[in-house]
């Protein structure tokens, strides 16, 4: 039984979808509070789009349930069709109807809600102004750029004030610079309208810019749901640590109050997410959490003697591969910290930047 908080708007519980013997979505639990923006982030085939299509009602779940405001929408007993869910959605292809003008596209949902003509005109004008498309309202979609079509799709979805807004990789068809701009546009619109939003993407940058929380999905399961800062700095699984940013995954072992890896021993107390019992586990150390200094430099951090095996200069930082015995560590250092390949260095890590992952 899931505990239903008073502010929970959208609740997925045990949501499952099978295609034949393949389980695309595997008992997913997720709650969004009113006005929250949550991303489903994961590689292609992880089940994020399937989850979104089940929330929209385009696909019945094989198990589990979906409810909004405490009312069940999908479950073993039946599925409310998409048109009666009071949601709206932005599609990968934008799905702007080419037979209608921009204004007609945006007005469509309002007309279906039987609003008066004057009110429809009013609200269409207002939302088009908000997405800066007011001057193009009589254009047909074929006459618009990709970014403009995207804005029309946003306006069309938001203008009906949906209970839940769903976005399915909405930026994947835009070029890089436009994508950057639209991320902030989507977040700006969210801050303005506060619509409960589920956003599907495989791009961690998009997810981090737009979301209050990110649910990282892998092989049909949610691995971790957290705010972007938490997700990056306190990943709970190897997959999350590796998928969000780059990391070093190091075999380690807990022995009482100490943690051993690569021939070194550290006091355990400052590490995060340590297993309760003694035994082997995996440590995640971000490349930028490791400092590189000349041998013999002293400070308060844990110190590891290492050799630079490979290096690449990328302009805003150095990318080193450092060997600590047989342990390979990626290290990211500022441009001025330059060491030749083969030089002996000391690596310094603050134990509080090390995270044990499952």
């Amino acid at each position, binding site marked *: 039984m899931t505990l239903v908080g008073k502010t929970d708007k959208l609740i997925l519980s045990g949501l499952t979808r099978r295609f034949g013997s393949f389980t695309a979505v595997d008992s997913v639990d997720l709650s969004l509070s009113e006005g929250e923006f949550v991303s489903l982030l994961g590689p292609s085939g992880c089940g994020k789009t399937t989850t979104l299509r089940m929330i929209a009602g385009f696909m019945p779940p094989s198990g589990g349930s979906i409810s909004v405001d405490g009312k069940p*929408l999908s*479950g073993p*007993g*039946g*599925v*409310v069709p998409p*048109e009666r869910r009071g949601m709206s959605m932005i599609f990968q292809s934008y799905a702007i*109807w080419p037979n209608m003008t921009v204004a007609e596209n945006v007005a469509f949902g309002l007309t*279906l809600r039987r609003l008066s003509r004057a009110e429809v005109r009013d609200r269409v004008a207002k939302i088009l102004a908000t997405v800066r498309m007011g001057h193009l309202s009589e254009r047909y979609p074929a006459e618009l750029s990709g970014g403009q079509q995207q804005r029309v799709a946003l306006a069309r979805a938001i203008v009906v004030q949906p209970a839940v807004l769903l976005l399915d990789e909405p930026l994947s068809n835009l070029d890089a610079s436009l994508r950057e701009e639209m991320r902030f546009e989507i977040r700006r619109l969210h801050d303005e309208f506060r619509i409960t939003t589920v956003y599907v993407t495989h791009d961690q940058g998009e997810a981090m810019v737009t979301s209050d929380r990110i649910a990282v999905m892998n092989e049909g399961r949610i691995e971790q749901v957290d705010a972007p800062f938490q997700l990056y700095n306190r990943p709970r699984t190897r997959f999350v640590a590796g998928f969000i940013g780059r990391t070093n995954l190091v075999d380690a072992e807990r022995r009482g109050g100490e943690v051993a890896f690569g021939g070194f021993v550290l006091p355990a107390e400052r590490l995060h997410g340590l297993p309760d019992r003694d035994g082997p586990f995996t440590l995640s150390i971000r490349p930028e959490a490791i400092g590189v200094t000349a041998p013999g430099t002293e400070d308060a951090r844990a110190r590891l003697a290492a050799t630079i095996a490979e290096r690449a200069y990328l302009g805003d930082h150095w990318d080193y591969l450092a060997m600590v015995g047989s342990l390979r560590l990626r290290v990211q250092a500022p441009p001025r910290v330059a060491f030749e390949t083969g030089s002996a260095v000391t690596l310094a890590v603050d134990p509080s930047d090390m995270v044990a992952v499952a």
Partner: protein
Amino acid sequence: MSFARLRQIEPSSLVFGVLIIAMVLLVVGPIARLLLVSVQEAETGALTLANYAAAYGRPRYLGALLNSLMLGGTVCALGLAMALPLAWAVARTDMPGRNFTKIMVLGAFMIPPYLGAVGWMLLAGPNAGWLNRAWMWVTGAENGIFDIYTFSGLALVIALSSFPYIYVFVSSALELVSSELEDAASILGSGPWRTTLRVTMPLVMPAIIAGVIVCFLESIALFGTPALIALPARFTVVTTQLWQFFEFPTRVEVAAAYSMPLLVVTVALFGLQKLLLARKGYVAVSGKGGERRPLRLGAWRWPMFGYCFFVALLAVILPMIVLLQAAFAKAWGRGFALDNVTLRNFIYILFEHDKARASVGNSFQYGATTAFIAIGLALAVAYVVNRRLVRFGGVLSFLCMAPFVIPGIVLAIGFYATYAPPPLALYGTATILVLAFVTRFLPIAYANADAAIKAINPEMEEAVRILGGGRLTAIRRVVAPLLKKSMAGGWLLVFIPATRELSAAIFLVGPNTRVMSVLLYDLSEEGNFEQLAALGTVLLAITLGLSLIGFRVIGRDFMLRRGG
């Protein structure tokens, strides 16, 4: 929590039920009935092989089968001699008049075969035909040398109407062969002629064979031309023999048994064609691989065009000139004199001859109804199959395409066997004609509808639904408007052949449901060529007018598209 009241079953099983019933009525029923009738005793319904014994028991009947095979073979040989040089010259060379040649081939394609046959009866009838009179005038001979009422005459006339099938396949393949493949041969020292014969032509061999198969099947399934030419010449082919089984007393069961070779050969050859065209690796038609430069013909430019012009002359220009002359003549034999010109034939056909006037209306009415039903049905099937709204959608689309491999004349016999007897007793009604036409042209409609639906991203409809519109709203507000243009084209592609269809119609018409094509055949039996030509001109004008609209709507090559 009660989910029961939220249950929303889309009425997909209902839709599937309706569509499958339509398919049974139109496709499965008539074919099953045809097979059944062929092994049943007419009176008792007991199983028997007597019908087959009757159908193949006389040398005359077997001779008709043989005639059809020989006819198909001869037509294909003649068709190749016409189509290959034309296709190659238009697609690969700098011959002058390439557009003219294209238009003439299109013309040969659009002229109903039986109109071309009427033209040739005027051109090469013994002695009185224009060509014979020209021959006698030039040489001073007492007798003409051409006689259309012979086996070779029939083969020539059919070849002149069937060669575009080969042309369509070969030219579209030739247009895709990259010049680099020819350059590779040239650089090794091969001359242009050798390259063409040893490299280019072999590359398009699968297309040639595919075209020949279609040409062969069209020739042996043709009814109008053999009926006009072979019957007076006192020999029979399969289709005219089938027609004779239908003369009083009608022996449907024997006709059904006799139609089996036609059906089997058609299914088998289309199967073979599909295998051939599926072997993509053989046809080096990737489309990539650089430009396609026309071959320079040099001194051969004009002789090549001369040959194309000669084919156009035989296939389109001469038959149409003499047809028009007869249509506007008081007596066609009196020639092109001004005092011989009259509108009398048209006035008679369109206003005085009750049956002729009615037949024009009937053709339009049945053609339009057929086009609406076929397109509607095809769209419904294409939609539910592509959106996966029903299980076993593949069965529906297969049935929609199945009539493609059923010759029109065989289909007509199936419809007769299914719907003519009581209790339905639809023989001679408009209903049975329209139903048969719908089935006959369903594959054309379906191919178009399927392509049109595939071009619409399902997200367009999902966007409607998530905003609160039901599936029907999505269809009405988004799908229908987006389909409008392509379906206007699809409608014409059904309407045009439906207004000129003869082989399916002739077996099913009654006294009050005669269509133009059938009436043309009736008039030919009366031997009044002027009125016959006038009605043919009306039919031709309608076909041309509609085709011009079609070009506007869908583009110029719309009738010559492969598989279209």
